[in-house]
């Protein structure tokens, strides 16, 4: 079963444990500058939004890559960059409409979320379940349930 990251911004407290977990998993160092997931704050922190790659089924970055360095992992559904092939041309960073693939000037390659091979560390580290890893076919399920339960003002 393919799973996907489910992001619930209302639960995000901007603790940035996810950014550290990501860089630690991929680079062995606590370094938000190298995190594939970033938190964006608005209105003095009233809203904080975790943002990362959504693993497009028909990915712009994959299509744009001139050396076929980007492929889709059949098991996890993650769109992955092969560092051995990547030449750092950065055309994928132009192609992605979400900005979630970026260049790493230390390595000369691009980096993006790869779901940690099926055990995403951001979700593991998140203290509030703002990031969870759920059935990819049912990311909307919890919201549907909450909406159904609310009754929309009808008498019980």
């Amino acid at each position: 079963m393919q799973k996907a990251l489910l992001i619930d911004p209302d639960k995000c407290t901007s603790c940035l444990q996810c950014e550290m977990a990501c860089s630690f998993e991929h680079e062995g160092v606590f370094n938000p500058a190298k995190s594939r997931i970033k938190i964006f704050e608005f209105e003095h922190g009233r809203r904080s939004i975790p943002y990362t790659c959504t693993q497009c089924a028909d990915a712009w970055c994959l299509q744009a890559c001139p050396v076929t360095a980007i492929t889709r992992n059949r098991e996890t559904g993650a769109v992955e960059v092969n560092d051995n092939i990547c030449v750092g041309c950065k055309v994928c960073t132009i192609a992605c409409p979400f900005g979630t693939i970026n260049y790493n000037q230390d390595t000369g390659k691009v980096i993006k979320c790869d779901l940690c091979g099926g055990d995403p560390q951001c979700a593991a580290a998140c203290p509030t379940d703002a990031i969870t890893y759920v059935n990819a076919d049912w990311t909307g399920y919890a919201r549907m349930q909450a909406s159904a339960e609310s009754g929309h003002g009808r008498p019980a």
Partner: protein
Amino acid sequence: MGWQRKVLRVDLTSGTAKSEPLNMDWAFDYLGERGLGTKYLMENMDPKADPLGPDNVLIFATGPLTGTMASTSGRYAVLCKGPLTGAIACSNSGGKFGAELKFAGYDLLLVHGRAPKPVYLHIVDDTVEILPAEEIWGTSVWNTEEWIKAHHENPLLKVAAIGEAGERGVRFACIVNDLHRAAGRSGVGAVMGSKNLKAVACHGTVGVRVDDPARFMAAARRGHELLAKSQSRQELTEYGTNAMIDLMQQFGGLPTRNFQEVQFEGTSKIDPAAMVAVKPNGHRNLLANKACFGCTIACGRIAHIDHEHFTVVNRKEYWHASGGIEYETAYAFGPVVGVDDLDALTFAGFLMNEHGMDPISFGATLAAAMELYERGIITKKDTDGIELKFGNAEALTVMAEKTGKYEGFGQVLGLGSKLMCEKYGHPEYSMTVKGQEFAGYDSRALQGMGLGYATSNRGACHLKHAVFAEDMEDQTGAGKAKPCKDSQDRIAMIDSTGLCLFTGEAGWGVEAFQEQIDAACEGDWPLERLLETGERIWNLERLFNLKAGLTAADDTLPKRLLEDPAPSGTAKGKVSELAKMLPEYYAYRGWTPKGVPTKETLARLGLGANA
């Protein structure tokens, strides 16, 4: 690791910035943050120096665990000699700035001298620039952060800045980072202003490593789990620290109307329930809770002001959300000044962060001014025509803004309550220790708290000791000396790790700190070593103060708390028993009856050279 092993030294007089290796002997003896900062302060300045002169040294200090996955790893300290107190100032802050300084590769930032013209520091890893601050000098903290990020086209910069209050030497001016977090107490913002330093902006891409990653991550995860399961952590998450106001009201330890009383009739209008109540017009004060860097508690409040409220009805620029009230802000803008208008408290809180001032000291200073006014010692002629009576919400908000902008009577309030009350010939109405105003706990109801206030090295402070449980159980001064001293040493250690004190309030014992430090840092860090480090730090702070000219006579409380009994509550009829507790405390500390560390104590702690 844990440490970056690098210190950035800036001399604003000569306009130079250079990095140097961290003194590892000092790191092994003092750990980091508060302890290591104190050692660097001792070795880099004369404690007799003028706090607002160029020979004061301003230090931004992270801990070895700052910027790691330990929960609450966002803490850093700002150290200098405090202009409010003439004693050592060590102010603690969270937010994101401290972690960013660590990610840029530095354990400490030392700032010497005074720039000839206003400047700010721009730090991106190894690249350090001292840049002109003409365009932001004279503007607010919020404007400063916005300008710097836009000017450098770098939204990833983290900014610590002062407002006009710091520039103009308001004695309790603070340094605000990330818009609504602060190194709040003792006037560290005024020191930054005296150096013509407007802001420090930092972006780091180097990252932080630990000595034993596998063991560290296992310890960090255990720490996370402890907090996740903790009931007291859940309360902090849900209510913030303001849950304390209902407890203190019930107990009778809530300083009201400049400590004339210990209970306040308006508490229910400014407590956590009030913060989530929905007004008839649909307005609700509290919007969300947020965390500092690395923190899995998230006690921070985000709130907004009712757009119809008198303070902001014609001021759209204040209609946005920002940092909401915590307990200390609630006490300082609520009971101590007699105000029960939640929107007024919230607005005044916004002003503190916008202009860079300590709410505790501002509120307690205003309370003293209100008592002077009600007793007829000052009049409307002094107070710009404002009726400075207890309970006047408009007086609170107007004076907060005047002080932030250093206008009119705000210039007098900006002296802090000790100098202000002395100016009007009535020092007895200033509720301070060593010149610093009390926090929201009355020493007559909480005896051990009173001892802690009197002996804290940075003046009246509620955070440097922890005898709350003992005080709630036994309202006499008996047996308070030991838990006071022990907790002071333990907290000095915690304040030196880079983690937040609130983990101790939310489920962690000392073992949790010990495990994570031992795994992250080189060398062995058994519990005894860590606790001894805390005791060493406390004694070094004491030595700084003794060299600065403080004596045992400064370890005291105002007459009101020593002689005027609490008028109500569980401590009705009681005064502080400081006279009984203090000698016991000195003895337990291994100090002389005059409060000086003995040669034996100093030798035991490796401080013999400082005797």
